């Protein structure tokens, strides 16, 4: 029986739900461990991979390296291109066909071509991360730059701000919420991109680990990188959210009100 009090403080309900699923998984998983494994076996596999034969962290570090470098490039470039397109009509007209076309293309389809161009290692990871994440960043920044409140633009102009000052004091701060929306989507896409690229082309990395364990029906081990990636993507989203709150203290005020 779920009382009104439980619904007001849902922590117990959440924990209960998770525990129930874990228990169910444990029971059903033991029936045929190759199909779905079970939580205690996965924990044991995690301990083995992480602390005994030390395969998990090097693979994860390889993925992380590509992700960080690629996402850094794509953030800087994406934001710059987004603002340039949003503010300079010529740049918009020149770049728009490519941005629109590439945004619509499944970037993963480019992996075989990228292998030809940059190989299967670090460069591939960086390239696929950039291709996966830069377009949502460009497009969101562009929308932000385009949708700055006209009255605020007037205000900047009324105080005789020049073009550069308009950009730094009005357009960029007004676009920050959009910019972060782009970064949030971008970081999620980047993670998907790099894992798929590692699964299809690379011989190292977290994605490759998943493929290997799958091939050898080591289902318990297979779940380890999958769960690590799941937790990692939550951490990434939180990091972006944290940075957004730090960058927009005024928005916190309005959220509270």
């Amino acid at each position: 029986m779920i009382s009104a009090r439980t619904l007001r403080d849902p922590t117990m309900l959440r924990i209960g739900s998770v525990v129930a699923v874990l228990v169910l998984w444990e029971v059903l998983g033991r029936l045929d461990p190759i199909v779905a494994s079970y939580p205690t076996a996965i924990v044991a596999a995690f301990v083995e991979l992480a602390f005994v034969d030390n395969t998990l962290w090097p693979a994860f570090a390889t993925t992380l390296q590509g992700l960080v470098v690629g996402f850094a490039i794509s953030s800087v470039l994406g934001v710059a291109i987004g603002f340039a397109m949003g503010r300079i009509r010529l740049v918009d007209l020149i770049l728009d066909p490519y941005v629109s076309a590439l945004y619509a293309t499944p970037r993963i389809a480019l992996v075989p071509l990228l292998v030809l161009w940059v190989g299967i290692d670090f460069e591939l990871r960086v390239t696929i991360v950039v291709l996966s994440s830069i377009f949502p960043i460009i497009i969101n920044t562009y929308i932000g730059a385009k949708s700055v409140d006209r009255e605020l633009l007037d205000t900047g102009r009324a105080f005789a701000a020049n073009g550069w000052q308009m950009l730094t004091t009005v357009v960029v701060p007004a676009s920050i919420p959009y910019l972060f929306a782009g970064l949030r989507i971008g970081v999620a896409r980047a993670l998907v991109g790099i894992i798929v690229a590692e699964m299809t082309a690379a011989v190292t990395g977290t994605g490759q680990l998943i493929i290997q364990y799958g091939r050898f029906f080591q289902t318990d081990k297979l779940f380890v990188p999958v769960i690590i990636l799941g937790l990692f993507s939550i951490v990434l989203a939180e990091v972006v959210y944290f940075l957004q709150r730090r960058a927009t203290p005024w928005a916190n005020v309005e959220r509270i009100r």
Partner: protein
Amino acid sequence: MLDIQHVSKSFGRVAQPVLDDFSLTAAEGEFVSLIGPSGCGKTTLLRIVAGLLPATSGDVTVAGVPSVGPSRDKAVVFQHFNLFPWRTTLANAAYGLEIQNVPKQEREERAMRWLRMLGLEKYAHHYPGEISGGMRQRVGIARALAIEPKLLLMDEPFGALDALTREHLQGELQKIAEQTSLTILFVTHSIDEAVYLSDRIVVMGTHPGRIIREFAVDLRRPRYDYNFRAEPEYAQIRGEIWGMLERELAEDEERSDAAEDTTPMETPA
């Protein structure tokens, strides 16, 4: 100080101009209000004087210099305050000085002086989202005054505020006008506000936007420390302007009715 000569403004291909051959001058330190029904072009005129909008024809001169764009001589106070939500009260007030590349410490000191005068020093580090509408417009006024303009342009600055706050800020604005030699061009739709604040009231009509008549307001200053509404002159000016605006609205309706009569009726197929 302010010299507006034969300014006209049309938008797009619409035949009727929003403003038609508008001329007005204001002396240094003078407080001039523009009043008229909506659509009479008073805000358009203010935006042209501010340099935010080009006139189709005519000239605007501020302190002897042709005014073709925004400049340091002019500052605008907007109807909807237009504070930057990401700037604190102090940073908003110092905005104009920042644009003029005044060093940080100096601009904050100068902005702070105005904030103190407007009773906002306690809220210097608050964001606009944390303060009331009346306080926000005080910040808007401080931001405009901080650049020490010669001409202050105010576009229905108190229109979005409640009656009590409005009256309070009107009093403060009078004090500021007294202490400085600011020339103020003030757009309003409140006759009471115009009479309270102005040296001169310009009544405008619509279609096209133009001056109907000018009134000098000779009520004794300062007007905030006696009941100016009890003076016979107040009632007289108020009545005259009211009648004028009513006639203008009625005539405007007739004009648009007449215009409608000339358009062919739509016949059902």
